[in-house]
């Protein structure tokens, strides 16, 4: 059922794109009559896969990525990119891995069989890692817009890339932030036992420990749980300054509510998995004051962040949820590599990916020899009045700008607190 629905969606998107293109043409026709006159160039279709959880608890984040890739494909089609005398016509193949590591290889095989040129995805680390083997075997380039577990690029696959900082980079920064900026002496750690949650929690634990923070409790849950009272009660008895959660907003929302019910006052810190607009819906006013890291710049600090959000909103009637800019950039890194390779073949594309130097919405994108992004910035956000506010940006290719902008943002936060 989902596949037929997706097929209809992609068809609708293509028709919409075609109509948009036509509308664009007819508007500009009156002035130069010449360009419309020659027969249209032969088109060659290029299939790009996008795999993310499109159903289940994480579907809102997966759908966000799918939207971003569809938007990127429409833009690329509207740009009428020519390679070897043929105009490229991008087709999006969206598949659902249900955030399930067992489903990921099955879906990946389907994508490989459909002979796509490249894949954007998957969303979760837990699905990206098993799927990457299949793409590697098939020689299909893969860029994950969001998988942050270091293992993904540590496997040595020539096809695996990502456009976000990995957990080692992110977790280290978060751990140090907890120790130095929050001045925490003790902390409790909860993770959801997924590749992502456990991975980031382990790195945070190590980096905070190295910076002198005492870990007073290490608790676990699952990515389907809704009851955290028992582990939170245990944590409460240890009185930590900070609680770090490695997991996704679906758990963090109820967890924050239950913390409030138990009267826990500790500072709640999470990583990119909870840094979404959905958290405010799931956690209500209990979210206020929560800190979360994000491997990238805040969308309002991105050069074209605002115009991207406007464009996204105009098309999908909602704001960017989380990783849409990364998904959009991942698609365009492929387009960029195709242009430089002068071919849409996977093999040619792979040769050109290592030398990528692309200026995306999220910032400059360059890869190191493992396929990780070079100098990916990490931003700490604070939940203030139902919105995420950037309080600090650490690292990044252009440290001057974020550092300057971090100061006023940091000053804003206490002001908002005082208002409350």
């Amino acid at each position: 059922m989902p596949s037929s629905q997706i097929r209809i969606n992609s068809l609708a998107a293509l028709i919409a794109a075609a109509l948009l293109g036509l509308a664009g043409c007819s508007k500009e026709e009156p002035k130069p009559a010449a360009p419309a006159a020659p027969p249209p160039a032969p088109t060659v279709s290029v299939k790009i896969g996008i795999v993310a959880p499109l159903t289940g608890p994480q579907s809102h984040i997966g759908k966000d990525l799918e939207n971003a890739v569809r938007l990127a494909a429409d833009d690329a089609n509207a740009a009428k990119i020519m390679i070897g005398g043929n105009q490229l016509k991008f087709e999006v193949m969206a598949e659902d891995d249900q955030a399930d590591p067992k489903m990921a290889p099955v879906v990946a095989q389907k994508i490989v069989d459909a002979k796509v040129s490249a894949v954007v995805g998957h969303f979760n680390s837990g699905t990206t890692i098993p799927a990457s083997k299949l793409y590697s075997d098939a020689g299909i380039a893969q860029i994950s817009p969001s998988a942050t577990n270091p293992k993904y690029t540590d496997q040595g696959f020539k096809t695996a890339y990502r456009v976000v900082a990995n957990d080692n980079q992110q977790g280290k920064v978060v751990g140090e932030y907890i120790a130095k900026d929050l001045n925490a002496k003790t902390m409790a750690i909860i993770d959801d036992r997924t590749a992502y949650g456990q991975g980031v929690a382990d790195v945070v634990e190590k980096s905070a420990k190295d910076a002198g923070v005492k870990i007073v409790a290490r608790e676990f849950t699952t990515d389907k749980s809704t009851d955290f009272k028992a582990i939170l009660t245990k944590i409460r008895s240890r009185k930590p300054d900070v609680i770090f959660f490695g997991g996704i907003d679906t758990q963090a929302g109820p967890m924050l509510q239950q913390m409030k019910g138990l009267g826990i006052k500790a500072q709640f810190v999470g990583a990119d998995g909870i840094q979404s607009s959905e958290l405010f819906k799931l956690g209500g006013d209990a979210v206020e004051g929560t800190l979360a890291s994000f491997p990238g710049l805040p969308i309002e600090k991105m050069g074209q962040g605002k115009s991207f959000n406007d464009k996204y909103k105009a098309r999908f009637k909602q704001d960017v949820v989380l990783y849409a800019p990364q998904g959009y950039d991942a698609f365009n890194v492929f387009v960029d590599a195709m242009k430089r390779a002068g071919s849409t073949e996977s093999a040619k594309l792979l040769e050109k990916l290592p030398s990528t130097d692309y200026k995306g919405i999220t910032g400059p994108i360059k890869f190191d020899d493992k396929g990780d992004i070079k100098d990916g910035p990490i931003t700490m956000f604070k939940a203030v009045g139902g919105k995420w506010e950037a309080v600090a940006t650490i690292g990044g290719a252009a440290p001057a700008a974020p550092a300057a902008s971090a100061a006023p943002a940091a000053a804003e936060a206490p002001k908002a607190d005082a208002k409350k």
Partner: protein
Amino acid sequence: MDTLLQQIINGLTLGSVYALVALGYTMVYGIIGLINFAHGELVMVGALTALSVIKGLAVAGLGLPPVVLMMAGLLVAMPVCMLLALIMERVAYRPLRGAPRLAPLITAIGVSIVLQNIAMMIWGRSYFSFPAVMSVTTYEFLGATITDLQILIVGMAAALMGGLLWIVHRTRLGLAMRATSQNLQVAGLMGINADRIIVAAFVIGAALAAVAGLMVSAYYGIAHYYMGFMLGLKAFTAAVLGGIGNLAGAMLGGLLLGLIEALGAGYIGDLTGGVFGSNYQDVFAFFVLIGVLIVRPSGLLGDKSVDRS
């Protein structure tokens, strides 16, 4: 000490919900010997229906007080669940009344999947947050905290269970139910309309499930189409633990299971020196079940129901 007390409060709240759902399993089993695996889905339908009603009323902005909103949600969810149980019994189980026991069991699993998918089509696949109509007040109590919602859940569950015991032991309907559970044919010979009694068991169980659904989604602040599965499984475990077919057993089993889960998740890490962590929370329920069944195959209070077949 305050931690232990807090875990007990957590466990009792969770256990009250399990007990309410477990009653639905045990009533139906006690009368026709069917394990109605679709019972968990009734909880889910109850939760989502109540949620939709409350959300709708909250958005309408009539400025109704939270208690009225909750009651309105419940007043819609209960009849919906009861009607659903009625249809379920009529369409899926009654035609199989004389069939071998496996047939209705597998039908029940099928009904469960059908209901889940219908709910997915109606409400979609995403998680719903429970509208924040009720501002939760927290009370301090010997170092532990208890919210008014927890008090409401435990109190309401106790009242409903008391009411059910009263119906079963003090009314004509209850007398007929007990007679039917002892022997369906003989009860029929005594002038009891067995079909009606069976329907009554289904419908009463469904009403309790609707209440449990509202409770659990308000308590955790979240509801989704898949929530009935695990909850149903746990409640079924509770019913078996207490002795399936026995009402008091279901209540005891539910409360015990809630306590075991809360205490287990809270203390296993320390007791085993970190070998087992709180991620084993869901395992305890089944671990304890196996332990109890080895010692008492018919459950804690269920010695009466073993010899009926």
